[in-house]
């Protein structure tokens, strides 16, 4: 291997310590060391004397130095400091300084390409538009980390797509819309290269242009998550991204005026970007050259399938992108037709309502879970409720009124049929299945909300529509109505209101969740009937209080029974095991039901003592009932 007989070593304050090491190199290269600032000041005098320079500079100063090297036709060897991990990584250098010095002094340089934008040389990238939180160069102003971050977040929520017209070296013109166009010389240093491997080499004689074109903020956020994946493992270009590779480009933008570079400088649009092949000669590791092999393929690359075409570009232009991507026109029409049909009241609906309610009522009387589930599957109530949600989202008054009338008719029919059945039946029992539906809690609201989401989601995709049966079981609309009707039949308004509250919880929970789901799925960019949705939301808030009270009772019951179940008491030398503890509420009064296991018989005095001991564990006064089992 041959080494340069003479070279300059250009250092900065952080790399001073290398002077001695480099000057005393074993390769007989005579080194003249000079501080970067002095070198720049004296550049005119010493420029002609030198052929090769070894540099050890910070990341920011390297692009600047490359421009100098290009101008003075210098070859460069780079020796990164061990602390400059990023530089070591991008150059595929060794962590051993001696090894890097050896490479830097080799008389074996190869040319690398640089990009010129108009007449300005760029090393890394130039941006037209914004790529908030991915590449904030040019949008933030380095005022402070916090302020720049807030600024980027604001930009994130106000991304606009602009029209771009890009002409390649071969004269192909790509017209599209995007939030930004990025001109890259070498993607190795760029964050965007983490999103996709653009197969770019620093010696391929081509410029890469990346167009970022998200259709929604959600899509852009998804693109950001790609930063955490390994780009080399990704086979397909992420949604929202397109790229072009050519020897030169002319970039025009509709509204945007300038291209901004990493160092804060800018150029007015339109710009002409050209590649300068072998602009600077560089010494680097074998691995670096392996990855950046010389390519002479003149073929241009145009990957724009993820980008809006010329006609679509006009639709997206100069609008802030929505939170979620809009659904396609075709999908929307199809769904709307189904929902309109669902909102129409017909005889089949009424008969199915009567049948499912009677089935549910018989299941409730016979305490049979299986029969009740069967009734849930037959029940046709979910469809008009989902239609109400779409009506509210799109402010379709007709759809709202039709579907609400249908739901109302269904409710009346269900209440009447179950109450009439109750009056006809000779016995008046309250089964566990009925009781389980008269104390709705916040948990039921949670079930309703997720069922509403599942219902809207299933409705939106034909291929998963069969899952609606599962949704119907989860939310169970008809059984609470049947219990309500039974309550009416018995004249027991406690049962009526309790079960009706459960139905109402399901109803409003489903509507609100379905509205949000449809919006997320892109069936409307904005909630058009905001007042109506606000009304539904207010209803949810109103019913949340009684639901919270019931939920709180459940929590209290759980805490008390949990606290006591593993508890043992020693009363007058008698060992008492609490086997089961259950809390029943009679109005506001808590009645604690205990199942005790003992060996010795308990007297009234023992029980009084036990009661005192239990009472000390709780703040509120308890009424206690016990059932005693004896160990023989």
């Amino acid at each position, binding site marked *: 291997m041959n080494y340069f007989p003479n070279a300059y070593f250009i250092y900065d304050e952080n790399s001073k310590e290398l002077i001695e090491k480099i000057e005393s190199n074993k390769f007989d290269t005579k080194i003249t060391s000079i501080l970067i600032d002095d070198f720049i000041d004296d550049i005119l005098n010493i420029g002609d004397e030198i052929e090769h320079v070894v540099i050890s500079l910070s990341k920011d100063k390297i692009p600047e130095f490359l421009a100098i090297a290009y101008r003075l036709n210098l070859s460069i060897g780079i020796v990164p400091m061990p602390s400059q991990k990023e530089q070591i990584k991008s150059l595929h250098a060794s962590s051993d300084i001696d090894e890097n010095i050896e490479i830097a002094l080799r008389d074996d340089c190869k040319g690398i390409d640089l990009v010129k934008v108009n007449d300005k040389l760029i090393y890394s990238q130039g941006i037209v538009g914004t790529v908030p939180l991915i590449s904030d160069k040019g949008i933030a102003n380095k005022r402070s980390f916090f302020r720049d971050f807030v600024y980027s977040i604001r930009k994130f929520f106000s991304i606009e797509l602009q029209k771009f017209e890009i002409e390649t070296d071969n004269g192909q013109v790509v017209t599209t819309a995007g939030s930004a166009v990025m001109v890259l010389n070498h993607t190795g240093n760029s964050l965007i290269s983490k999103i996709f491997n653009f197969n770019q080499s620093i010696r391929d004689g081509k410029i890469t242009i990346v167009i970022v074109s998200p259709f929604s903020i959600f899509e852009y956020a998804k693109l950001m998550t790609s930063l955490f994946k390994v780009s080399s493992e990704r086979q397909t270009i992420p949604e929202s991204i397109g790229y072009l590779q050519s020897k030169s480009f002319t970039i025009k933008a509709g509204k945007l005026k300038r291209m901004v570079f990493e160092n804060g400088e800018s150029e007015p649009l339109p710009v002409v970007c050209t590649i300068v092949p072998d602009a600077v000669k560089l010494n680097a590791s074998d691995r670096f050259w392996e990855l950046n092999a010389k390519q002479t393929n003149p073929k241009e690359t145009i990957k724009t399938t993820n980008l809006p075409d010329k006609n679509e570009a006009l639709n997206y232009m100069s609008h802030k992108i929505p939170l979620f991507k809009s659904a396609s026109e075709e999908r929307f029409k199809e769904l709307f037709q189904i929902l309109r049909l669902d909102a129409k009241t017909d005889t089949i609906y009424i008969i199915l309502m009567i049948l499912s309610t009677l089935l549910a009522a018989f299941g409730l009387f016979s305490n049979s879970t299986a029969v009740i589930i069967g009734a849930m599957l037959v029940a046709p109530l979910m469809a008009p409720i989902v239609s109400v949600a779409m009506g509210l989202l799109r402010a379709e008054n007709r759809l709202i009124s039709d579907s609400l009338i249908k739901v109302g008719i269904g409710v009346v029919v269900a209440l009447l049929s179950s109450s009439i059945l109750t009056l006809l039946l000779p016995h008046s029992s309250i089964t566990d299945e009925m009781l389980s539906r008269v104390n709705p809690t916040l948990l039921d609201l949670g079930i309703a909300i997720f069922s509403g989401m599942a219902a809207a989601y299933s409705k939106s995709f034909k291929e998963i529509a069969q899952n609606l049966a599962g949704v119907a079981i989860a939310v169970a609309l008809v059984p609470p109505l049947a219990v309500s009707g039974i309550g009416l039949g018995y004249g027991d308004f406690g049962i009526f209101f309790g079960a009706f509250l459960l139905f109402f919880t399901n109803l409003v929970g489903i509507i609100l969740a379905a509205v949000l789901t449809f919006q997320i799925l892109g069936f409307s960019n904005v909630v058009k009937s905001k007042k109506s949705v606000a009304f539904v939301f207010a209803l949810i808030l109103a019913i949340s209080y009684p639901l919270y009270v019931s939920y709180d009772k459940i929590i209290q019951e759980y805490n008390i029974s949990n606290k006591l179940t*593993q*508890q*043992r*008491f*020693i009363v007058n*030398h008698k*060992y008492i*095991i609490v086997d089961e503890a259950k809390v029943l509420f009679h109005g506001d009064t808590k009645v604690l039901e205990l199942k005790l*296991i003992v*060996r010795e018989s308990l007297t009234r005095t023992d029980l009084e003592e036990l009661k005192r*001991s239990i009472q*000390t*564990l709780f703040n509120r006064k308890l009424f206690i009932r016990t059932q005693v089992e004896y*160990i023989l």
Partner: protein
Amino acid sequence: MIKNIILVFSLILLLSACSDKQEHHVSGKSIKVGVLVPMTGENKRFSQQSVLGLQAAQKMKKYLNNGDEIVFEIRDTKSTQEGTQKAFKELQAKDVKVIMALLGSDNVLAIKEQVSKSEIPTIVTIATSSFLTSADGFISQVCMNNSTQSIVASHYIRDEKFYQNVGVVYDKNSHYSTSLAKEFRDDFIKIGGKIIFFLDVSDTKGIQEFNNISHSGIEMIFNTTNSILTMKLLKILKKKKSKIELLGSDGLLSNAIHDSKNDLHLLNGVYVLDHYAHDVHKGRKQKKFQNSIGDEKYKHSSYAFLSYDGYQLLTYAFEKCPQYSKECINKHIKNSDVIKGISGNFSMQNYQSKRNIYVDKIEKASLKKEVVIY
């Protein structure tokens, strides 16, 4: 900018409102509390845990509501009865209002007469002997006593494990161990159980005998010995591949963490009676207390927890008696309202605490709750 400043100030105000730090009016007056603790000698093992617990409790409430400060006068009892008596005299001379005795039963018994004569209310945190308190005395026991422990153990074995045949091992050199073993033996027989052997294992002869004894037909061993002897017994049982279960008395794990830390794995599966279980729900106060202890290995020490409970009883009595008269303090230490302890509420009735007792199972050097007995 102004908006940001207002926002930051509002946040600070909000956070300070959420903080549970209370501002105290400081009166400048201090109340001396004597602390007897074996800082040297063989009982040193529980002194560090107890003292750390007491200091952590004091850190959480150093001042009474009237602004008076509680100040400790700490004396080393050197783990001997003579040393304890001497230390007590020194504290008496210092005119302390209350004495916290972080001592074992033997040494508390050694000062019982002195306490009675001096009429200094004395709070015992870890000594469980049933002979410490008397109807007209001045010693109060914050921990459970041996009578309660023995009743709980005998009933647990009979009614929860359904075992009838039990062996008992004890250390004749420890008053605590001997008296608890005897009480258990009597209680278990009284409720219909059978004691198959009652063995002193304090010396080589006893250990040899334990090794030779036939363990067939024995369902459980009740063990009141310290952790060093317990490890010897467990090694024998392991060697014999015996499946007999072992129920240990209070403080076994706390002692083992100090004395036998390399053999802790042997304790896996051993049942113990204790004041605490590691898997019970921890409130904010308990977490704060554990953080204040500092030393990681003592964060779950029952001795530290009992020091906290003793300190709560002490401050409760001080708050009730603004003049700090011995009679008044003793009256409120003797019988108290419900006090929030670190592992549950407790109250004092006739010098003894009414509190939860846990039967735990040791797993990986921590106490897993089996049942709680009140």
